[in-house]
């Protein structure tokens, strides 16, 4: 059986070392080309007229004046008169013209009339009464409540108050009884008022059923200490520096070439085929570099379809439309907000015994995400309910580690407040509860020991409230996180040429994570050659398919398929070379630029000489992940990471400064230590940014984004980051698990650890991020949002 396993530590010339990214020189010299930079001959500029209202119906559209303007080449109505629009900035009409100025002038000449409808953009805490005002219970609601062990008295109260929207028959009652439904619930259903479902009042609030586990009430009353608080984090925007969009042309009637800013090169054609009525095989998707994605660039967007349609109308000429910054803020994705009222309790030893949370948040019209609460800790007794709020704003998209940063802010904030109430060091409290911290408990333990050392936690931690005189208060906070990160489906064609050069074709992309570099490392490491010998061709959907780059799935996927391809190619080469070395293929090894007989250095060929034995036709094999027929699994799932923050807060101005952050992170087998560390440094910086500055602000009156630009939507700058320390877990216990992705996990904890550090400095909790001066001063004035 072929041995694909990752090599043992002694046989890794490149794997796990600190290696410069292969695309570094092209990026630092400005030569790297992005979709936004593609300027083909005859290029037209695409622009889109957007709806100024957060909720409206289009009553009429008149494009006649625009169509007649000199330089305008195509006009397409994207959403017709009569269409209801649900967020400001939604697409109405697209125009292609000879240049951007002309296209903008044309947009101004288009007349659109709207019937303005009432909008709702608030993600403030849902009114309490909503719980019982959501209309009749459906059969599904009831089943949901039963599955989630909602107490019978609560179910009966809902039935009596709201009625039911279905008509159970005798056989249904019998079946319920058989499933263990209490007789009192069945009796309530028999007496229930029937309310047709369509009579449900329209509400922006959608509640999930109460989820109960264990006996929370009993646990809270028996607990030694109970802490209550409110925590949360608003909607934030991906802010990819390269906005969403594409350059699309039709070289033939049924041939489409798409340059697109995407995280999903292999997946775009299938999404475009139907709207363009062109076979997916006729659509060539290309992208060399992408200026950020962070989860927001997996799909073909409506504006891309418009760009393609405009190009078709304009005789197939290329049309470029990369969104302007304002549209990017309004329509190209955001991270859902999440807030929660939390009650948490521990026994006298600091063991967590009970959790209760009522959470809410919005992710646009579709509602919000449900953060996994409580995060990491499997607290034995829990009661929780989440309300998703539907708001009139552009929909949420996956944002690096969906739902985890929110869950960490809420859970780690509550744990930190509980520790403070118990006068306990939160590090002790967390360590004492690692037995309920899931499968990565041992990892957390090892990581906290290192983080403690790097931060000097035990030396400088103080009880909540810095007692030092003066305006500047200093504090420490911590958080922890987990993520899956199993490698995705990935294929490559792996070729060894007779001249010794190696070529890999893979339909993947590099978001700046260093994917290109790790593919090249694995190939060169496996073949014992230098990375310069390896040419990677990627960013083209005509190459073997690889998954979209999301959820930290790329590193595991592309390294596994590359390893398998490289091993297959190496073995095929050995078969051709063995006779010349008078050996069996299985006796050969490829190391240090040679193919030689193991243990007999005298019998060797240089890599080039060996490859010359291939003959005239290059040797091409396939590498594939996953491949269950040929174990082992080269990737894995589940990592742990911990972070600590040291902050200073000026209690006169409310300004928070990060002095230092420490991140200790696991990602299984590290392929390139340099780019892995960069990924974690970047996550810390992005985390500092959302902890202190970022918030998408909607105007309740107009329903529009008030800060759709980089002046008023503030990002962290170089002066904001403080000292950063990153430590990657490597060696025994980590390497043998295989390659696991790293993009999501380190961005989970900064918000929570910084928020906890601020609470430690001030002596009071600032409930909601970002920790802006106004919020800090308000919390101080009120003696803390959480009393």
């Amino acid at each position, binding site marked *: 059986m072929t041995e694909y396993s990752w090599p043992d530590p002694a046989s890794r010339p490149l794997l796990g070392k600190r290696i410069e990214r292969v695309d570094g020189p092209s990026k*630092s*010299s400005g030569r790297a080309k992005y979709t936004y930079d593609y300027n083909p001959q005859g290029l037209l500029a695409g622009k889109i007229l957007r709806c100024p209202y957060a909720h409206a119906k289009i009553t009429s559209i008149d494009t006649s004046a625009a169509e007649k303007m000199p330089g305008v080449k195509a006009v397409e109505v994207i959403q017709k008169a009569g269409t209801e629009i649900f967020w400001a900035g939604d697409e109405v009409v697209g125009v292609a013209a000879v240049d951007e*100025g002309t296209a903008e002038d044309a947009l101004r000449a288009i007349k659109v009339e709207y019937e303005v409808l009432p909008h709702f953009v608030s993600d403030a805490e849902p009114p309490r009464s909503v719980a019982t005002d959501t209309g009749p219970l459906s059969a599904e609601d009831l089943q949901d409540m039963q599955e989630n062990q909602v107490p019978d008295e609560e179910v009966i109260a809902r039935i009596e108050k709201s009625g039911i929207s279905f008509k159970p028959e005798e056989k249904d009652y019998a079946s319920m009884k058989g499933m263990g439904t209490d007789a009192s619930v069945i009796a309530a259903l028999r007496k229930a008022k029937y309310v047709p479902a369509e009579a449900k009042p329209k509400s922006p609030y959608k509640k999930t059923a109460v989820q109960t586990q264990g006996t929370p009430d009993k646990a809270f009353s028996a607990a030694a200490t109970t802490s209550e608080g409110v925590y949360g984090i608003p909607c934030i925007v991906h802010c990819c520096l390269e906005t969403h969009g594409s350059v699309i042309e039709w070289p033939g009637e049924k041939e489409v070439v798409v340059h697109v800013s995407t995280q999903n090169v292999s997946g775009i054609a299938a999404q475009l085929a139907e709207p363009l009525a062109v076979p997916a095989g006729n659509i060539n998707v290309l992208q060399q*570099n992408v200026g950020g994605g962070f989860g927001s660039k997996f799909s073909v967007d409506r504006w891309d379809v418009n760009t393609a349609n405009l190009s078709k109308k304009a005789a197939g000429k290329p049309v470029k439309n990369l969104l302007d910054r304002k549209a990017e803020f309004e329509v190209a994705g955001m991270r859902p907000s999440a807030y929660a009222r939390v009650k948490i309790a521990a026994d006298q030893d600091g063991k967590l015994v009970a959790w209760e949370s009522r959470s809410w948040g919005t992710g646009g019209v579709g509602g919000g995400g449900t953060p996994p609460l409580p995060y990491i800790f499997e607290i034995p007794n829990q009661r929780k309910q989440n309300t998703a709020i539907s708001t009139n704003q552009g929909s949420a998209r996956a944002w690096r580690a969906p739902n985890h940063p929110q869950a960490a802010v809420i859970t780690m904030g509550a744990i930190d407040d509980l520790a403070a109430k118990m006068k306990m060091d939160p590090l002790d409290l967390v360590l004492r509860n690692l037995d309920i911290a899931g499968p990565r408990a041992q990892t957390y333990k090892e990581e906290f020991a290192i983080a403690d050392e790097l931060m000097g936690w035990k030396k400088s931690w103080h009880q909540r409230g810095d007692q030092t005189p003066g305006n500047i208060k200093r504090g420490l906070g911590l958080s922890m996180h987990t993520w899956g990160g199993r490698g995705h489906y990935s294929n490559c064609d792996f070729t060894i040429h007779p001249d010794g050069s190696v070529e890999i074709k893979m339909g993947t992309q590099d978001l700046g994570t260093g994917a290109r570099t790790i593919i090249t490392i694995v190939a060169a490491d496996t073949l014992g050659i230098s990375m310069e010998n390896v040419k990677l061709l990627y960013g083209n959907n005509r190459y073997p398919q690889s998954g979209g780059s999301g959820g930290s799935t790329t590193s595991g996927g592309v390294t596994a398929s590359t390893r398998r391809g490289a091993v297959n190619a190496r073995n095929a080469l050995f078969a051709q070379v063995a006779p010349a070395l008078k050996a069996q293929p299985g006796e050969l090894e490829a190391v240090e630029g040679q193919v030689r007989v193991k243990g007999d250095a005298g019998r060797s060929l240089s890599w080039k000489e060996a490859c010359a034995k291939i003959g005239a036709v290059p040797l091409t094999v396939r590498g594939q992940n996953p491949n269950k027929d040929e174990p082992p699994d080269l990737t894995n799932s589940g990592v742990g990471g911990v972070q600590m923050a040291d902050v200073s807060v000026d209690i006169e101005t409310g300004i928070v400064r990060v002095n230092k952050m420490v991140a200790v992170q696991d990602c299984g087998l590290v392929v390139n230590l340099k780019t892995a560390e960069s990924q974690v440094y970047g996550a810390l910086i992005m985390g500092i940014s959302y902890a202190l500055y970022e918030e998408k602000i909607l105007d309740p009156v107009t329903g529009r984004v008030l800060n759709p630009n*980089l002046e008023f939507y503030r990002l962290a*700058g170089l002066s904001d980051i403080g000292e950063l320390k990153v430590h990657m877990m490597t060696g025994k216990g980590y390497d043998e698990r295989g390659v696991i992705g790293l993009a999501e996990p380190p961005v989970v904890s900064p918000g929570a650890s910084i928020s906890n550090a601020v609470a430690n400095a001030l002596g009071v909790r600032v409930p909601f991020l970002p920790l802006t001066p106004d919020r800090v001063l308000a919390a101080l004035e009120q003696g803390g949002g959480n009393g």
Partner: protein
Amino acid sequence: MKDDDARKPETTSGVSRRDFMKISAVTSALPLVLGPKVVHAAGEDIPVQGPGKVRVALNVNGKKMSAELEPRVTLLDALRGPFDLTGAKRVCDRGTCGACTVLLDDKPVYACSVLAIDVQGARITTIEALAEANKLSSVMQAFVEHDAQQCGFCTPGLVVATTHFLRQHPTPTADDIRHGLNGNYCRCGTYNGVRAVALMQAGGRQS
């Protein structure tokens, strides 16, 4: 600006707002012609460009480049469009993020906030001219060594800004770096590497 000047914006600009409105009214009635038009307003002859395309000649990276551009076209859009110099990026498009940084007579400017027509005669240097004949400059090389780049979209702007900063501050302190390189946003979070570049290039004074 001194107080004296502040009270007399009309003298400094040469055209008052009211005159400008008059001029605008006149020019909008003009046919689309090339070259400046002279309009008599407020007792003066005022050259007016546009609103149609005019020839704009620029000195970019030591070469004469020209194109027919509307006067409203920014230097950034001129560079990225007709001149196909795409190293400078369009990100915020309103003078906040620094991704479009170029040197204008050796001083860094945000090219999105300068009109192309206004910088005729100035020496414009873009990222493309900072690498000599396919060889990385020492700053670019340092960006690679310290991995001060991820997606790379902000990187050209940061390289131009860092190059100029190090010319002005050959031995910067950490504080100089914090202030001097704070005008460029990065979303992937490469500042740690950028900071290392600036410190190491300078021989590494740590405070």
